[in-house]
């Protein structure tokens, strides 16, 4: 698991899944389609990522096609960081 994946996972567990067993959240757990991130939560995650990694997300990227799993998110952040 990459550093970004680990960080994203910790953030999601803390913010949106308090009390959940960390091993239940894997890199491929569906987040948006799985009901863990609603639109508000997704926005919150994006703001966290932008601040933490100094990247910018386009409006069209903030959806289930781009951000549905921890692996997807980490991949997109990695691309943006170049």
């Amino acid at each position, binding site marked *: 698991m990459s550093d970004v994946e680990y960080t994203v996972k910790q953030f999601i567990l803390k913010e949106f*899944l*308090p*009390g*959940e*067993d960390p091993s*239940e*959240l894997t890199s491929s*757990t*569906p987040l948006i*389609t*799985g*009901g*863990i991130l*609603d*639109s*508000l939560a997704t926005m919150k995650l994006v703001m966290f990522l932008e601040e933490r990694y100094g990247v910018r997300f386009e409006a069209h990227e903030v959806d289930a096609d781009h951000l549905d799993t921890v692996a997807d998110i980490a991949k997109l952040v990695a691309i943006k960081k170049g």
Partner: protein
Amino acid sequence: MATSAALHHYLIEAARRWPENTAVVDPGSGSLRYSELHRLSDRVRDRLRAMGVRSGDRVGLYLRKSTDGVASIYGALKSGAAYVPVDPGAPPSRNAFILQNCGVSALIVESRFVERLRAEHETLGPLPPMIVLESVGSGRGLSTALDALDRKGLAPPTDTIDAAPDALAYILYTSGSTGKPKGVMLSHDNAVSFVDWCSELLEPRTTDRFSSHAPFHFDLSILDIHVCIKHGATLVLIGEDVGKDPERLAQLIAAERISIWYSAPSILALLSQFGRLNELDLAPLRIVLFAGEVFPIKHLRALTRQLPGRRYVNLYGPTETNVCTWYEVKLPIPEDRLKPVAIGKSCSHLQCKVVDSEGETVRRGDEGELVVAGRGVMQGYWALPEQSARAFLAQAKERWYKTGDVVFEDDNADYVYLGRRDRMVKRRGYRVELGEIEAGLYRHPTVKEAAVVAVADEETGVKIKAFLSCREEKHPSLIEMKRFCAENLPTYMIPDTFSWQTALPKTSTDKVDYQRLKEMR
């Protein structure tokens, strides 16, 4: 001679027609025939009159459910008083408040409750005159208490009081928004019109055996007791412990050959899951009535499959009107049905309509608040004139009681319940009915009980919290529940938090205690 508009006339008439029929059974401790119940309640009447009770007074009942309690109810009514049953399991401070609030002029009480009540009354003033029972069960405790009082001085025989139709028959206290219980005042005509409507619906026979599952301070007991007595049938009292234990309860229904069952859906749901109904002979059971909350459709379907060929009737109504609409469930319930059954049509002694926030009748099919008028509608709340006035539609010629429930009328002219006005919240601009989320959660195979509350949240406006109990030892993960909800509910309905409990907290009437859930973290 009592008028036909008085509730106790049913007992007088039944005792004349069927003196030898069994009126009440206390399983495990005995039974009383109609002639005996009539005589015992006459003795209560005479004693209450001797204690100073007069027409229009209130008599408190602080007893566990028992034949003694039934005789006390009729004794109080025959004396011209309204009966005020309190929950023997409730804190004595609450009961002391109720008895003080409506100013009972006498109290029939079990000795086990007297000391703590006396302690409460130190600040409230003197206790009213009391008939104190050492025990209850099959009327012996009451009889013994009356004997003891007779030895000190006989109560002269009196006549049964003719109650006017608008005289109060009973006051039932429900939880009030201010935190203090409020007394719903119901007259003889309110009760008699309801009981007579029940006769139309159920066509009871003298051979019927009615369950008395609900406690006497709960409005379901009005049907149990008075419809049963009117028809010379047998009332089978079900104690609180057995009443909550599905396996023992199912055995009791079989052993007592209960033919007309009435309870909240929650216990029926437990019976269908844990009652081992298929191992029992429940042939006499012909009618199953339920009321008080929404029956989750999967449990109703399971029950009707285990016990086919019966009439299942959903009765709807607040304490203020007792039952005001009814719906007979059409069997079989399709496998793919997800919505609960309708609450149906108005009872024949009442009128219902759906109004908007201005009190104007909405178009058929539109949502609005259900309002009810007619003979069954309460007189008001005891000593709360402002709350009583607010309970009815303003500026209307008739007294339309506002139920606070949001419904619509479907294509079959049945009312469909959508939820409490106060259980609807706006979330992300959508109107969310918390009951709909509960119905969604119930579809998860391991969910045994589900309750959802909305609490104010600084960040998002409203936070939706789900409380669940599980059928299995290991409950599903949060992620699994969220995924399940995402597949079954719109996103804006997915709860923010899920909390697993061994069992959900219940009120004294065995409904989910939402107030306590709201206070839980």
